């Protein structure tokens, strides 16, 4: 049993090295302008970014730097004022409502700071909902939902309503839900923002494990420095522009500076 995770990990690594060149997300020249009354506010001032498959990416930056806006663009939740966002080399501005819904349903899993578990449904129903949208029959969806809940360590709490779960448990339900349709990308918007230190770390470890075992690309917007240790790549956003992009190797060298910088 202890060997199983290692085996899966090795397999995942093999897959990774094979597809290392594949880009899952490509962002070119994206700008976004919001109208606040009569003033135009430029949240993004031209972002170019390439994210390769299977990586764990953190988008870092202070509040108001535009990282949530960028995050919404990548997730197809918002349209850029100019520039293009490609997911799997498909320009998402060209998609109609049906295709966009399909993309959100099957390709992308979302995790939010505020968990956003649907309050009227149990944990299991929350996890199975995306599978229902994807057209899976009910029994198969329930089976898979239970597996996913066990994966995140909530197998015995499937019938609980959100208000009966702690913040960390709710976020784990959200992670299970994000994995429901085996997405290629998991987008996490400040996943640890509303969690305490330990639960936050647990959630980060869970995300990292999933990204390694399943080869899922995890993109998280965050200003939580705990995220840095597990990231393959950190994208620093400052003032609507990419400040710098650091790989894991560079990070471990400069980690002292990061601490001192903020």
């Amino acid at each position, binding site marked *: 049993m202890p060997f199983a995770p290692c085996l899966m990990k090795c397999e995942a690594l093999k897959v990774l090295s094979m597809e290392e060149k594949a880009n899952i997300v490509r962002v070119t020249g994206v700008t976004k302008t919001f109208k606040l009354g009569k003033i135009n506010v430029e949240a993004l001032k031209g972002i170019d970014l390439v994210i390769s498959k299977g990586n764990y990416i953190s988008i870092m930056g202070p509040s108001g730097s535009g990282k949530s806006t960028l995050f919404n663009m990548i997730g197809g939740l918002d349209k850029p004022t100019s520039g293009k966002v490609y997911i799997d080399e498909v320009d998402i501005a060209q998609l109609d409502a049906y295709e966009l*819904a*399909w993309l*959100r349903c099957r390709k992308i899993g979302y995790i939010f700071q505020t968990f956003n578990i649907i*309050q009227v449904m149990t944990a299991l129903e929350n996890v199975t909902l995306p599978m*229902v*949208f*994807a*057209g899976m029959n009910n029994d*198969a969806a329930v089976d898979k939902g239970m597996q996913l809940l066990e994966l995140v360590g909530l197998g015995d709490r499937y019938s609980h309503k959100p208000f009966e779960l702690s913040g960390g448990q709710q976020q784990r339900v959200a992670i299970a839900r994000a994995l429901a349709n085996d997405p290629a990308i998991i987008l996490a918007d400040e996943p640890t923002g509303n969690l305490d230190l330990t639960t936050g770390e647990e959630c980060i470890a869970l995300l990292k494990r999933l990204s390694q075992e399943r080869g899922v690309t995890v993109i998280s917007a965050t200003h939580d420095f705990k995220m840095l240790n597990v990231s393959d790549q950190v994208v620093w956003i400052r003032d609507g522009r990419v400040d710098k992009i650091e790989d894991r190797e560079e990070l471990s060298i400069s980690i002292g500076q990061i601490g001192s910088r903020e």
Partner: protein
Amino acid sequence: MNEKAILDDISNGSGHIQRQVRLPFLKSLEISVKSIRVRFFRSLITTMSLVLAVSFLSFVNVGNDVANGMLAAGDPDLRATLIRSGYDIGPAETSVGSSAKQRWIVILSLLVCVVGIVNAQLMAVTERFREIGTMKCLGALDRFVLRLFILEAGIQGLAGACAGALIGAVFSLINAWLRFGTAALSAVSLMSILESVAIATGVGVFLSLLGVLYPALVAARMQPVEAMRIEQ
């Protein structure tokens, strides 16, 4: 949907974008019923205005049915009783219609009821912005959201209108019994009462659906980002 189709879906799934997302009707019904059950007290209050308006409509109509039944019995005593209790019946008339004043009051009460439903449903939509946004992030189409809200209103409308129509009819019959005695009840035809109850129920369901249309459209057209941006 069978397993092979799912496998086909999965094998086609990688690499390009498809169009199928679905929400089976039974599943949407299940979600709607669940939402109503969770917010039962709230739904009850929303439905209450409908119950009252529909029961008033039903009360008036059944009252007229009773009067018509008494006229049709052809008994001059009953006719005299009716005229004495305020019905405006000419010597040649064989039926009683609702008076213009009565119609206006009924229409007004129904209008007030629709405005109340629109108001309550708009509040419900605002309350559920986040839920709607989340569903859209999980791949729900506009019409899934629309369908959920219309189903909910339909169920509420049906329950409320049925209850209202029955309550109105019962009170109308009790009223007739107190005013005219048992003769009135034996004269009235069951068919016409059932018809009045059915009409009142139908009107109630229609009004409930009419009232939810605008709020549901607002909910369905919302972009997921807007829904998420709202602090709750």
